[in-house]
């Protein structure tokens, strides 16, 4: 029985296990974001947080303990200076684990273990992109794609500031989950955090708009040669969507899209002339480019 025992064995001897975990923690402190299996990430996260706690303490015995644990002596000053200042306000929880599917070789559950607030903070980047996507979706619904391309998305930083103060369950410009994530990633970041998030959100919006436009130019030459009867159908090709993928402002769920031909609520007769690709979101929103 293993009731209440919080340690994993990893099919290794105790010395091997400890060395493996020390290696993981050292790599995490060096690169600030590592990819490993989920159980290893969980155990390594626990040890890494204890090392960072030693860094925050800052005295000589803590330094000696950290030096004894980490396998690279040149990383110990980083723990006691950079990481200690970064997490000076934060009470614990210095690491974050993102699940990342399964490894192809042995189907092991993979995970990305990262230090919170690092330069490549995944959650920060994903929240910024989600903010960009949502604002773009709303604008496209109001103005149409051509209007958005002309005007762009103004005042993203103001939206971020407003949503930061707003209560989570209020009705605002962002989804509840996105707002919650926004508040969490900006909590210990301050002013430059808002600027960074705004920049990443705007870059993402530009990327989302650029793709169909670029493809449209490539396909424009080919469109002249196509049959005039099925002219309406060729616009779907502009987006080059993969199965299940949706566009900003699209409303159908992934499962609904994946059902494709077998799914319900088919639109009118024009569907028979449309390009039948399973799972593609043929929303009329993005066809007027």
């Amino acid at each position, binding site marked *: 029985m293993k009731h209440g025992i919080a340690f994993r064995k990893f099919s290794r001897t105790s010395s091997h296990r400890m060395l493996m975990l020390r290696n993981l923690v050292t790599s995490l402190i060096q690169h600030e974001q590592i990819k490993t299996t989920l159980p290893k990430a969980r155990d390594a996260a626990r040890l890494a947080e204890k090392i960072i706690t030693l860094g925050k303490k800052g005295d000589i015995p803590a330094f000696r303990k950290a030096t004894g644990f980490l396998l690279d002596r040149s990383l110990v000053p980083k723990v006691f200076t950079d990481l200690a200042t970064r997490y000076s306000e934060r009470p614990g929880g210095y690491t974050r684990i993102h699940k990342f*599917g399964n490894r192809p070789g042995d189907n092991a559950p993979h995970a990305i273990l990262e230090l919170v607030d690092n330069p490549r903070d*995944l959650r920060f980047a994903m929240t910024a992109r989600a903010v960009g996507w949502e604002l773009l979706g709303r604008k496209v619904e109001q103005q149409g794609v051509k209007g958005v391309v002309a005007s762009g998305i103004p005042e993203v930083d103001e939206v971020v500031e407003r949503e930061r103060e707003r209560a989570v369950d209020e009705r605002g410009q962002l989804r509840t989950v996105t707002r919650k994530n926004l508040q969490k990633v900006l909590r210990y970041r301050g002013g430059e955090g808002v600027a960074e998030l705004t920049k990443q959100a705007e870059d993402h919006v530009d990327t989302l708009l650029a793709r169909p436009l670029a493809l449209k130019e490539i396909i424009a030459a080919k469109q002249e040669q196509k049959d005039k009867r099925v002219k309406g159908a060729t616009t779907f090709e502009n987006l080059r969507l993969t199965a299940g993928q949706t566009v900003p402002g699209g409303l159908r769920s992934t499962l609904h899209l994946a059902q494709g031909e077998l799914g319900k609520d088919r639109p009118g007769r024009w569907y028979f002339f449309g390009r039948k690709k399973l799972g593609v979101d043929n929303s009329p929103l993005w066809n007027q480019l």
Partner: protein
Amino acid sequence: MATALALHQSRTWLSAAARLPLSRISLTAALVPAFLASPKPFTWAIPSLPSLLELFPPWLLAVPKKKTSHSRKAMRSANKGLKDKQNLVHCQACGSPKLAHNICPKCYRELNMEWKARNRTPEL
């Protein structure tokens, strides 16, 4: 059954004794009291698997009667197929399908490539 076993025992005693090590026979002799000790020590040989199988008549062993038909075999494996994944959602950043509670591999790839490109060509 016991009588059959005893008969079998007497019949194959010599072969059983041949299988047993000599030390085994002498030990049992030492345990038995002197007034009960027989000149020829008698030990129960544990019947090995081949000798046990000799007890069963051939028609008593389990065996498939007929080759399982294609139809029956297919019916048995009806629920062994791959199950569809239900935990699919849209990535809130790029709209592509992804596993629920996992990060979007497309977004992660883009971020990774961006980061590597930035490191390869240091900004002036």
